[in-house]
């Protein structure tokens, strides 16, 4: 059982706050790994321009570090900022990593005026090429994300231990969105790429629970002509890719995600105002129906945050907060830890039909039900 926490606030905050929430939810996971995603970044020692993509990952040794440097240079990227974590190696209990890196780059000249799609494609290609390079060299280089305004950290161990190792409490990095997952070892082996959150082209999700429909979904995604649908060290990675597929490939609104992963039954669709469209969507996307129990928590490039449950809803999650700052966690005590000064009676636990959306303005969260009218002109 994994523990999940997400905080989103108008004022950037330290990721350590989220790690403390993870500590509050400590019972129930074994600390085999931590994944952290920060979005809306602020660095103490650098005025970061959020247009610069940030490459996040780990170089295990000098050689891979050099290769990385060389690769990026040859590809035409100009290094703008190289964040150095203040390392406290006494907290390290696994193997000694050479370098955790967050590096901001300026995109190669030829991409400056290009369409968004091309730029996004290039960022992904670069990330995948580096990942492949690391894998070809015995895993001496891991790359978790390469995207503007996004940083990712993944490590084996307890959340606070990892936080202390990288001195995340020192205020060097802050962000407006931070999500973390503490992972219990499932049967897919410990591998850094298996740590949630998962990331593809700015879209990121994390999940607790097990997705028993993993293999058929994975097989189908692997058949798409899109290189980003790869990896699958964890059964939860498909949630991220389905969200990406729904938003970027099918170009459907966020609300459609729920209809893809847990469609309403045919009987329920009969009574739905857009039953006909949704019935067809259910059919066409049948191969993407998940089988939980899962709570999926994610963020989008515009800092929208979301929470959806699987149909069985055996994994409740809570969302709570106040205007300007919101938290989502797999346990109530996680929300308490992140935003103690809120009115807990206004907390919400979504039911199976709900998608909770916290829009970028963070004024209030929306509860969208699958039974509601679907916001798409096409479907009308």
């Amino acid at each position, binding site marked *: 059982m994994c523990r999940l926490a997400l905080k989103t606030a108008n004022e950037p905050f330290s990721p350590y706050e989220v790690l403390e929430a993870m500590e509050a939810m400590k019972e129930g996971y074994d600390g085999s790994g931590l994944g952290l995603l920060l979005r809306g970044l602020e660095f103490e020692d650098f005025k970061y321009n959020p247009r610069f993509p940030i490459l996040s990952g780990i170089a295990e040794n000098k050689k891979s570090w050099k290769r990385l440097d060389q690769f990026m240079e040859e590809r035409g990227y100009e290094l703008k900022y190289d964040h150095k974590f203040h390392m406290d190696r006494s907290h390290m209990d696994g193997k000694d990593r050479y370098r955790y890196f967050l590096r901001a780059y300026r995109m190669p000249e030829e991409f400056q005026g290009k369409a968004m799609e091309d730029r996004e494609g290039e960022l992904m290609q670069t990330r995948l090429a580096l990942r492949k390079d690391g894998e070809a060299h015995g895993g001496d280089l891991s790359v978790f994300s390469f995207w503007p305004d996004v940083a990712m950290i993944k490590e084996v161990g307890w959340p606070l231990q990892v936080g202390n190792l990288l001195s995340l409490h020192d205020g060097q990095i802050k962000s407006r969105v931070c999500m973390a997952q503490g992972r219990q070892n499932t049967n897919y082996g410990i591998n850094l790429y298996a740590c949630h959150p998962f990331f593809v082209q700015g879209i990121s999700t994390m999940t607790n*629970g097990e997705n028993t429909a993993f*293999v058929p979904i994975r097989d*189908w995604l692997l058949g798409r*002509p899109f290189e980003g649908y790869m990896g699958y060290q964890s059964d939860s990675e498909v949630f991220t890719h389905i969200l990406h*597929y729904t938003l970027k490939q099918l170009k459907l609104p966020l609300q459609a995600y729920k209809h893809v992963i847990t469609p309403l039954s045919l009987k329920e669709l009969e009574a739905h105002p857009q039953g006909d469209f949704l019935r067809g969507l259910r059919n066409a996307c049948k*191969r993407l*129906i998940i089988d939980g129990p899962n709570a999926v928590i994610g963020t989008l490039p515009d800092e929208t945050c979301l929470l959806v449950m699987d149909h069985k809803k055996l994994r409740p999650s809570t969302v709570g907060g106040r205007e300007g700052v919101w938290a989502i966690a797999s346990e109530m005590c996680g929300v308490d830890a992140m935003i103690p000064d809120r009115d807990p009676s206004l907390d919400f636990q979504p039911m199976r039909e709900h998608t909770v959306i916290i829009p970028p303005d963070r004024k209030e969260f929306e509860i969208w039900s699958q039974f509601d009218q679907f916001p798409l002109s*096409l479907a009308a």
Partner: protein
Amino acid sequence: MVPIRSVPIEPGSLTYHDLPWIIEHREDRCTLCGQCTSVCPKECLHLTYRRQRMPNLDVLSSKRGSEYRTFVGIRQKTDMTHSCIGCGMCAMVCPNEAITPTLNTVENRTLFLNNQKGEAYKRGGRRNTSGPTLLDRIMFDRISMLTDPALDAGRHEFTVSTTLGRILSPEEYLKRKANGGWIPPTREIFPFVIGSMSFGALSPNMWLGLLQGVAYCNEVLGIPVVMCTGEGGCPPWVLKSPYLKYIILQIASGYFGWDEIIRAIPEMQCNPAAIEIKYGQGAKPGDGGLLMWYKVSELIARLRGVPEGVDLPSPPVHQTLYSIEESVMKMIQTLSMAFDHKVPVYPKISASTSAKSVLNNLVRNPYAGGLLIDGIDGGTGAAYNVSMDATGHPVASNVRECYLDLAAQGMQNEVPIYAAGGVGQNGNVAQNGMALVMLGASAVHIGKYIMQATAGCLGNEQNRCNVCNVGICPKGITSQNIKLYRRLDPDKVAQRVAETFMAIQTDVKKIMAPLGRSQSLPIGMSDAIGINDKDAADRLQIKYVC
């Protein structure tokens, strides 16, 4: 030695222990009521007069010697025409447990003689192989336990239906929806379909019972079962009834019954569930349907538009002016058009090493609503024994191959694969069916199992009974002789259909629940299955477990 002419021996002479089934009859229990002899479909029992020696054992008398008594006994005939088929009807009707057939485990010499008058051996049933099938040996071994609990099959909500018909890729669906394009018709059905058994092969009572049962499943139990007509059309009252929506109409190379169907189209209250175009059948690949003259009754002749009492062999292929690929394409398109593109149309082929190329043809045909692959273990009402036993391809690896081929193109389930042939051969119908689903089938068709489960068909893979072809079915399932089929009460068949599908549904849930699946049928969930045979595991690309 006696002169040779006084012993009645011919090259084809047999004695009772040369026969496939040996009748054991107990004189001490028999009351000579004659029920066994009258029920025997092969007329192989006859009354005989026997003489028995009664030794005179009166010790006080000096008189010695034997006395004789004459009695009437029951014996089996030993000629080929009347050799016992082991159906067991005699035992079933005997009030005194005085008679029973037993399988001849020493030697069955009729195997050398079942070519009388130059006719090769024909029969009904399935390939005669016994023991656990490959499907029986597949285990569902991915149990949700530690991180997540398995589900409760009794209380949880399960979606166990599947899609009949072509599925578009999500991109294509949205594109067509946006510009008003044609969305191929689909049906949401129960993944166990009553496979094609024709009105003609089956007796009217059997057919009626099935249809009643199917309607009950849909309308009362909420289990969306559909059944396929097989070649030979459909009674006009059914075509014009609201029950047509539970029926897949089959068209085969003989086109029997299609005059009636086409004529009925304007009067149809609803569309049929689908159209199945039969190109091949697992039990007799390369052969058309075969309805032997015994079964072409007045009713059947009228339905099929043929004279009474003639053999009705369908040609092995559809008559065509085109190349076969073109003909398949045109036929699918034509039938789709006949029903206004509102009914899924899919072909049925016999499992074969060439199935993949058929599939790839269908992938490119936008009107193809799926592919039914019928394996060598499928049953039939009539076929040559050699076809049944030795011609064809097992279904499991064929379905798996096709699924993986589609997966490699990112198109799995777009052309859904339906599997048939040997599902439930040893009674494990839900287990066999779900194993095929996890190998990649979207649904399975069951025929023989349905006859066995709902009407008490006596056939098995030791060649018990299997006389479905000659119209003497002792259960009245596959006979057009009213004396025989009135033995079968359609209401009781309907009740058995309902019971059978209720139980299959529960079993399916019992399989899905421990795997943690409830939201959709686990098509292609190959991580959930294993088999204790390394070669089979490699071939099917599933786990080897031991």
